[in-house]
C-alpha cells in the first residue's frame, strides 16, 4: 500500500475531509460573508481576497489573502476555515499554516507562482486540497500529499460545464482502471503520469484514495445536485453565492439541495424565489489564457 494514503498524518488530514462530506464550502471575502455562510449551513468557508469572478474581471496578480482577513474570518465562525495559496508558493502555504487555517487550497484561481512544480504537501501538518481535471492530475497531487481533490471546473464562470467534464473524466478513467489486468498498470501509470502505487490502489478500490469534491462554476442548487450525482462528495461554491441577487437565500438553498440531491421535489422547492443567479460566461468565448483550469498540470 502506498505510504501516501496510510499513516497517522494522512488519516487526520483525510479525516477532516470525511467530516465535510455531503456539505457545501463557500468562498467568503470578509467576516460578514463568513457569518452568512455559517448561518446558512456551510460546513466550511474558504477565505480569499477576491472571489474568482472579480479576479477574472479585474486582472492583475491574484495572491494569498492578507493574514488579517484570514484571521478575521477565523475569529468570526466556528466551522473550519480554508484559505488559498498560489500553485507552488510554499512560502504562502507556510504563512497560512502558521495562522492555523484548517485546510490550504493550492489553487489555480490565484496566479501560479511556479509553472513547473507544485508544493511538496507532505512537508505540512495542515492538509491540502488541490484541483484536478483528470485522474493523472489527481494522483500527481495526491502523490505530493494532497488530502482532498476537487475538480477545477472553470472558477468564476458561473458555468458548470467544465466541472461536469472533469467529474465525468475522473469517473470514467477510474472505471477503466478497474477493468485492467495487473500487468497493464505500469503502462497505465506511465500514460497517466501518476505514481504506480496509487494507480494500483485505484484499480483495486475503484475510487480515489482521498475525498473528491466539486468546484468551479456551481451557481444554482441544481448545479450542486448535478455534481453530487456525478460523484462529488461535497461542493465548493465560489462566486456563485455572493455574486447572486440574494446570497442568503441561495446559500440556504444550495445546502439543502446538496443534502437532498436524490430528492427532486425538495430541490424544486428550495430552488424557488432565489432571484437572479450570477450571470455566467460562455466557456467557448474564453481565450485559452483566460481559462484558469489550464493552470497547473
Amino acid at each position, binding site marked *: 500500500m502506498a505510504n501516501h494514503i496510510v499513516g497517522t498524518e494522512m488519516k487526520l488530514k483525510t*479525516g477532516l475531509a470525511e467530516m465535510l462530506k455531503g456539505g457545501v464550502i463557500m468562498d467568503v471575502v470578509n467576516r460578514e460573508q463568513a457569518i452568512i455562510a455559517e448561518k446558512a449551513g456551510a460546513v466550511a468557508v474558504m477565505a480569499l481576497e477576491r472571489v474568482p469572478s472579480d479576479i477574472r474581471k479585474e486582472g492583475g496578480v491574484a495572491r494569498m489573502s492578507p493574514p488579517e482577513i484570514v484571521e478575521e474570518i477565523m475569529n468570526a465562525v466556528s466551522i473550519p476555515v480554508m484559505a488559498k495559496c498560489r500553485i507552488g508558493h510554499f512560502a504562502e502555504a507556510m504563512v497560512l499554516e502558521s495562522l*492555523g487555517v484548517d485546510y490550504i487550497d493550492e489553487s489555480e484561481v490565484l496566479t501560479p507562482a511556479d509553472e513547473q512544480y507544485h508544493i511538496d504537501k507532505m512537508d505540512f501538518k495542515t492538509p491540502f486540497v488541490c484541483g484536478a481535471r483528470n485522474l493523472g492530475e489527481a494522483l500527481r497531487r495526491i502523490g505530493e500529499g494532497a488530502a482532498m481533490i476537487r475538480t477545477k471546473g472553470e472558477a468564476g464562470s458561473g458555468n458548470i460545464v467544465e466541472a461536469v467534464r472533469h467529474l465525468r473524466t475522473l469517473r470514467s478513467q477510474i472505471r477503466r482502471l478497474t477493468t485492467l489486468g495487473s500487468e497493464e498498470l505500469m503502462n497505465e501509470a506511465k500514460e497517466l503520469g501518476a505514481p504506480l502505487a496509487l494507480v494500483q490502489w485505484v484499480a483495486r478500490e475503484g475510487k480515489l484514495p482521498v475525498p473528491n469534491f466539486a468546484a468551479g462554476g456551481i451557481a444554482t442548487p441544481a448545479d450542486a445536485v448535478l455534481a453530487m450525482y456525478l460523484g462529488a462528495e461535497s461542493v465548493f461554491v465560489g462566486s456563485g453565492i455572493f455574486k447572486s441577487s440574494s446570497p442568503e437565500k441561495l446559500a440556504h438553498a444550495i445546502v439543502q439541495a446538496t*443534502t437532498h440531491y436524490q430528492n427532486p421535489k425538495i430541490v424544486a422547492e428550495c430552488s424557488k424565489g432565489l432571484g437572479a443567479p450570477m450571470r455566467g460566461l460562455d466557456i467557448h468565448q474564453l481565450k485559452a489564457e483566460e481559462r484558469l483550469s489550464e493552470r497547473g498540470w
Partner: protein
Amino acid sequence: MKVGILALQGAVQPHEEKLKELRVESVQVRYPEQLKEIRGIILPGGESTTMIHLLKLNQLWGPLKEFVQTQPTWGICAGSILLANEVTHPSQESLNALEITVERNSYGRQNESFIDTLVAGETWKTFSSDPKPIEGVFIRAPRIKKWSSNIQVVFEHRNEPVMVKKNHCLASTFHPELTDSSLIHKYFLTLCR
C-alpha cells in the same frame, strides 16, 4: 434489525461500512418518519452547526429530540455535541440527551488534531477483554468538560472522559469509524438489541 445513520451531512459512509461488516442493515435518515423503522441511531461526525440547521429545516429537530431520550443513540464528535445538555465555545442548542457539558473545538484547530491510545473504563472492560488498546482519532474534537454522577465513563484520554454512556445513549468525542477496529460499533449494537 435496522440501524439509522443521520445523513444530513458528515461522515456517514464509514459507519455504513462498519455496520455492513457486522452484518447489520443501515438506513440513511433524512426524514422524520424514518425514525419509526429503526432500532437505534448514529449521529455521525461532521459540522454540528450545519446539522442543527438542517435538522430544523427538515422537521427532524423535535422528533429526533424525542427519539434520543429513550432509544439507542450514539453521537460521534459533532454528534456528541448534539447530545450534550450544555455546549460551549460557542454556546448552541442541543438535543439534551446526556448530562454533560461539551466544549467545541476544545483542543484547537485542525493542526491540533491527533491520534492516541485510550484508557478503558470498567464499562468497557466488562464488554471486551481484548488487550489490544483502542485508538482514538480526534479531529477538531470537542472535550467533555463536566459530567453528572449518573454518567459512566467508557474511555478516557489523559484522565478526561472521551466516551461516555448513560442507559441507551453513548457519546464519543473521537472517531472509531476511521480506524480498522469495529469493536465500538459492536458495542453500540449490543445496546440496540
